[in-house]
């Protein structure tokens, strides 16, 4: 337990415009679960990608098993016994699970042919060892995300590394699979392996970690034994602020109804959905993943064709058949997948901010008025406090939280009457979350109808005046005030009604 397996010292790494790591130290001991914590943009993924060979450090030293090493690419890291499960999955969709698991290390038989039988039997063996079940001949694209994550983990296990890096492995997993992953981690530890774990879920850190190292803004903060600290201690180490005041105080909404959805039906996805939002109100949508939340937003926004359903703002029924019409009539959508659906990653921040409202700044009917665009994007930057080096930089150069602000900024340009937030704070750090919550709160108070879906229950509870819980494509309950508790939401999310719950507990 005491032997040091890894020491990284004085690691520096810069990206264009950003100093990602400043003289950072990081080490871990053989056989422990080391949690690396910190806000997004703190440099956690960066240092681990240096360790896995994906990035090269600008300066600094790495010692692995007591020897100074240089890791030039992922292949070298693998040969040394270091393997990483990245945040973005590294599976090839068009290949089978088995092919993916053994990619680049396929055993061969005569004439250099891949030995499919051996591959299958050794994967089965490893899966049996850890109690994992996967259909090896399925194409990865046909697997649900959670199973893809498991395949990714088997892919690592089969390479028998000494040191395993897991970068937010649970973000795509349901509760049951998370528990299974914990078991896998524990059995890896019992086999003498070492694990480095990045997580944004606090309870996870405390459930699985032995020690925790905290980074902030690319610098090392501290390393502590998990058993000796509390959740509040950890938050304070990360941001210098405690958990309670992350959500703005809820305010009482007015009576006036400003947005309404009536009898919304989408074959196979949604049935009989009706709800309304009052002035100054934030309506939370909750439910287990895949029960129609994203489809609900897409149907309102005109991306998904509706069979029936009326959408009403300010007493007026809207005609929305596509996103362009939705925008014209004052609807805004902050999509869950900002990198693919929300942003043009390789274009400048300024262009991204201006893209939806281009028509408002035309010159001579066809040209873009550069001056107006610049002023507009500067205003938006100030308003949302977007941290950036230059508006001309690519959006991709921003941290997750700031990217999300750009997504929102471009939507706010049309002065929307309704904003639909789908997973507004996924993958962004605590500080950015707090800022985002304040922005949402202010939006609601200024008379915009705010509707938010999040898989983070604490967020839904902390932000919403009312919570609509979805189950199998319909709203199974609307909770308000004191009713909004974790327990009640989960109850409705599993399709039970609160009345039944009362009976059962009585």
């Amino acid at each position, binding site marked *: 337990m005491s032997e040091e397996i890894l020491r990284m010292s004085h690691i520096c790494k810069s990206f264009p415009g950003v100093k990602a790591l400043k003289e950072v130290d990081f080490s871990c001991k053989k056989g422990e679960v080391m949690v690396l914590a910190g806000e997004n943009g703190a440099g956690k993924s960066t240092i681990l990608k240096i360790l896995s060979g994906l990035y090269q450090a600008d300066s600094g030293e790495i010692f692995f098993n007591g020897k100074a090493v240089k890791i030039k690419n*992922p292949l070298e890291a693998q040969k040394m016994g270091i393997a990483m499960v990245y945040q973005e999955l*590294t599976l*090839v969709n068009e*290949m089978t699970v088995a092919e993916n698991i053994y990619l*680049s290390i396929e055993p061969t038989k005569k004439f*250099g042919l891949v030995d499919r039988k051996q591959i299958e039997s050794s994967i089965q063996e490893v899966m049996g060892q850890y109690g994992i079940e996967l259909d090896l*001949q399925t194409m990865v694209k046909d697997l649900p995300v959670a199973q893809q994550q498991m395949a990714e983990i088997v892919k690592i296990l089969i390479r028998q590394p000494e040191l395993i890096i897991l970068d937010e492995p649970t973000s795509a997993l349901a509760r049951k699979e998370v528990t299974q992953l914990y078991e896998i981690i524990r059995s890896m530890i019992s086999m003498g392996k070492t694990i480095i774990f990045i997580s944004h879920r606090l309870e996870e850190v405390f459930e699985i970690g032995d020690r925790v190292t905290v980074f902030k803004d690319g610098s090392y903060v501290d390393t502590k034994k998990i058993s000796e600290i509390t959740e509040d201690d950890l938050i304070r180490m990360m941001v210098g602020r405690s958990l309670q005041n992350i959500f703005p105080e809820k305010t009482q909404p007015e009576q006036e109804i400003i947005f309404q959805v009536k009898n919304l039906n989408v074959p196979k996805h949604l049935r009989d959905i009706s709800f309304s939002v009052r002035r100054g109100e934030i309506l939370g949508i909750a439910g287990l993943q895949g029960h129609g939340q994203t489809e609900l937003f897409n149907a309102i926004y005109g991306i998904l064709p509706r069979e029936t359903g009326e959408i009403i703002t300010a007493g007026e029924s809207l005609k929305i058949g596509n996103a362009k019409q939705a925008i014209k009539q004052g609807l805004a959508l902050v999509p869950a997948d900002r990198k693919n659906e929300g942003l043009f990653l390789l274009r400048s921040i300024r262009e991204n901010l201006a893209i939806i409202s281009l028509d408002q700044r035309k010159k001579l009917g066809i040209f873009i008025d550069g001056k107006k665009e610049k002023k507009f994007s500067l205003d938006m930057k100030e308003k949302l406090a977007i941290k950036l080096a230059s508006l001309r930089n690519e959006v991709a150069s921003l941290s997750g939280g700031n990217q999300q602000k750009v997504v929102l900024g471009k939507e706010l340009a049309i002065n929307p009457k309704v904003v639909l937030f789908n997973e507004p704070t996924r993958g962004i750090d605590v500080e950015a979350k707090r800022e985002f919550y304040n922005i949402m709160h202010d939006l609601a108070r200024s008379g915009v109808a705010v509707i938010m879906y999040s898989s983070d229950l604490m967020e839904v509870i902390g932000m919403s005046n009312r919570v609509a819980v979805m189950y199998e494509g319909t709203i199974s309950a609307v909770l308000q005030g004191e009713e909004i508790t974790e327990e009640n939401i989960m109850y409705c999310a599993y399709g039970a009604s609160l009345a039944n719950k009362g009976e059962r507990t009585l």
Partner: protein
Amino acid sequence: MKIKSACNYIFKDKYFQNRYGNVMLIYAFLLALIVAASLFDENFLTVGNFKNLLLTSFPLLMVAFAQGMIIFTGGIDLSLGATVALSNVACVLLMNPDSPVGFVLPIFGGLGVGLCCGIANGVIISKAKIPPIITTTATTAIYEGAALLLMNEPGGKIHRPFAKFLTGDVFHIPVALFLLILIFLFVRTLTNYTPYGKALRAIGGNESAAYSTGVKVDRIKIKVYILGSLLAAVAGIFLSAQMFSADPRLGKQYSMNAVTASVVGGILLTGAVGDLMGTVAGVFIISVINNMLNLIGVSSYYQFVFQGLILIVVLSLPAIKEKRAMN
């Protein structure tokens, strides 16, 4: 009963369906086309015509195998046609019709040209990171120019026994067929059953994933462009025997026809997906259609129009399928 259970096994096995479902369809289409052609024209279903089909298809088959492998990596090589022409010219220029071994140097010369073209493409694409479509457009101009510099109009002298052998028969079976089977077995085994083939597809499916999994992306890409250009050189050498001369301008059609054949044969332009078995059918579908048009006596320019139409139809099939699935 046994046959039935075997069929059940084959058609219900998920692995099989994933791999060969599309290929079977393509062959069914080819078969239908052949039946239609033979009903249309009694001359179609003759040994002579089939041999003719094989010989005219051979160069395109080589280039289509090359294009298919490159498309697996998510790339494309538009310079394959120019490589065919350049190696064709080099091969003929090196011929010594008077010496009994006057065909040995031309073969190595032709292949050597292919090797150089492939190295250039591969290194520029993987090391300088210039997109394949741009790189190979540029190298097309270079290779074409080089071919014209070496020989500004069709001509040259050919080693007669060499040409006779390549286009002739052994034991009543065309030499081209032997060659085809040999090369086909090699490239198909390589792309379907070896770690190299898996790496090709992994790169096409998700290049960064392949890299972080430990695949030597650059090296594998360079090799596939080299192998592709070597196949193009084989086509060029074969053409010198078939045409009994060299033509610096002959290559133009091959690059795009090979893309058409690949796509018709079920290879996805987005990379990773497909089987060179389908490519064979793809090439023959194109050849049979051209052959039919020839037999009917339509202007050969219609062949271009037809190929364009086929390409559009086949490329739009996935979109149509998706729409159906949605409804």
